[in-house]
């Protein structure tokens, strides 16, 4: 076991590095430089992670389908993203003649900017948050909601039926699931009593017999996490909720008319949204940068945050390799008839949990309510109507 100062140094290495670099500047410039430095790190780190994820995703999906995946460019195909990047940079950038050129140009930029803004409030380690806002969660959702604008800008300005249909689907889906995403996070806010993400992490940073007080280990937290995960998948347009870009019916959805680097920006935006929503999920339910066992706290906090993030990404890829795409009506039914009522119920259960006080009773009562309703809604409410063979009255 390492001694305490070294552990602390490792934990705070990036913070100390930032302080050291900034200390070369005059005092009046230091706050600005510190922020700029963090922004640069975020803007470089997450696209790099995106590049790595694309190759891992393709390899993972290949393995799921008993293939090898890309293995030609560089050792084990790990330079594939470089090849992809060069390709997308050198491709012709086509703007349709009848497109609304300024909006068409702005849409991918708005998407990437809005998604990057979300990272500003995510605590990526102890003391590693760009802006420690009191209403960080609110800011995050405000930024998350503005990605819908860019999707609709892209779909509408392309002047293409597939783009427009894709954008309409995307907006319908994202707005439906945005509600769920917000309401499932409200449960966390109700318990922790704060909208600041670092404080939410701090609230989970306690241990009982080596086990952490993560919200996922409570009945309402588990239910909230499942709902959050479903909504997050739909929010980021990932399979099985990738209807906005369902290639079998819509070519590529809202980015049909994009090529070259603008297409790459959409691709980047999608993955960055995935990272940030996974990071938020980890922060809200999985204890953010805290260690899963109290004896593992010597490992730096930022390692825990990024391993939780990558684990969520792995589950995203795993789900993509497993589940087929939903139909539009199934998607909407699922959102409004199952996920939303269940999330609302979860809010009630959270309130009950809050007011029942310490003790084992609240565990039993809250788990029982959630389990019964889950089974009831799953078995009875979401029962698929069986239509049976068609009968003809006159056409005999």
């Amino acid at each position, binding site marked *: 076991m390492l001694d305490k100062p070294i552990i602390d140094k490792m934990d705070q290495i990036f913070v100390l590095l930032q302080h050291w670099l900034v200390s070369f500047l005059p005092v009046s410039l230091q706050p600005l430089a510190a922020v700029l430095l963090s922004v640069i790190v975020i803007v470089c780190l997450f696209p790099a992670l995106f590049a790595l994820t694309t190759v891992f995703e393709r390899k*993972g999906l290949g*393995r*799921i*389908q*008993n*293939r*090898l995946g890309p293995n030609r460019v560089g050792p084990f195909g790990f330079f594939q993203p470089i090849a992809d990047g060069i390709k997308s940079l050198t491709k012709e950038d086509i703007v349709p003649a009848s497109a609304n050129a300024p909006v068409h140009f702005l849409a991918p930029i708005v998407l990437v900017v809005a998604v990057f803004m979300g990272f500003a409030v995510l605590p990526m380690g102890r003391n590693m948050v760009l802006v420690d806002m009191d209403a960080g969660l609110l800011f995050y959702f405000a930024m998350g909601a503005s990605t819908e604008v860019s999707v609709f800008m892209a779909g509408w300005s392309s002047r293409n039926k597939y783009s427009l249909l894709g954008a309409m689907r995307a907006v319908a889906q994202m707005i439906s699931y945005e509600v769920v995403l917000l309401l499932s996070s409200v449960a966390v806010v109700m318990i922790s009593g704060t909208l600041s993400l670092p404080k939410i992490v701090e609230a989970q940073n306690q241990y009982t017999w080596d086990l952490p007080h993560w919200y996922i280990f409570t009945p309402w937290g588990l239910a909230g996490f499942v709902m959050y995960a479903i909504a997050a998948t739909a929010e980021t347009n990932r399979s099985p909720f990738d209807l906005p870009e369902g290639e079998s019916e819509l070519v590529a959805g809202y980015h049909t008319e994009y090529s070259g680097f603008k297409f790459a920006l959409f691709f980047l935006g999608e993955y960055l949204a995935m990272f940030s929503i996974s990071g938020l999920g980890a922060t809200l339910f999985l204890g953010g940068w805290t260690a899963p066992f109290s004896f593992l706290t010597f490992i730096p906090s930022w390692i825990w945050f990024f391993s939780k993030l990558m684990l969520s990404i792995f589950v995203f890829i*795993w*789900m993509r*390799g*497993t*589940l087929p795409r939903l139909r539009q009506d199934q998607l909407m039914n699922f959102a409004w008839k199952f996920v939303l009522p269940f999330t609302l119920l979860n809010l009630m259960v959270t309130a009950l949990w809050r007011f029942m006080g310490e003790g084992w009773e609240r565990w039993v009562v809250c788990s029982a309510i959630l389990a019964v309703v*889950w*089974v009831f809604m*799953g*078995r009875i409410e*979401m*029962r*698929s109507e069986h239509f049976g063979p068609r009968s003809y009255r006159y056409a005999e």
Partner: protein
Amino acid sequence: MLGEGILKGMAETARNFAGSFVSKERLTTVEYPEERIPTFENARVFPFLVYDTNDWEAGLRCVACQICEKECPPKCIYIDKSKDKKPDYAGKQQFYPTRFDIDISVCMSCQICVEVCPFEAIKMDTEFELATGDRFGGLLLDRKQLAKSNEYYHRIHPTEAAEVDVRLAEEKAKANAKAKAAADAAAAKAAAAKPAPHVEGAGD
């Protein structure tokens, strides 16, 4: 709809994911340029010309009858018939193609040329790696490029080639028998036509 189906599916894909690292038999794909699957006997790509013996030019079965040229739906075969005749593989005097080109950028692999050929001279190849930098000249195959030996034919389509050999042998035997009968008849005729000198000679 409690999510157990999703868990089952996830378990299945996880099994595939892990299994593909462990057992090579699971992998359904082949690392193409390094490894390759042997071509199937019934595979066909573009036509080639069969020749017997070791000399591709003299051994070509093609007699430049131009049936395939006329039958070819996309008209991708170009044949120039020779002025003189040469003995074919069976020893019979035949015309031969001075030019036999197939434009494989036009050919649609329909195999009609193979079906109409009365001389078993044109067959379907299984060679598919025909990419070339020259899309005009490089894809117009001349008779030297098209000529492939009967052994090669046996190698790529064993069953079909054996049948063809039997058929050709029968035809050759029939032709030989006919020739022999004709020769016999001619000999008999000759014998009948000049019995007198023979007798005279015998009388000497």
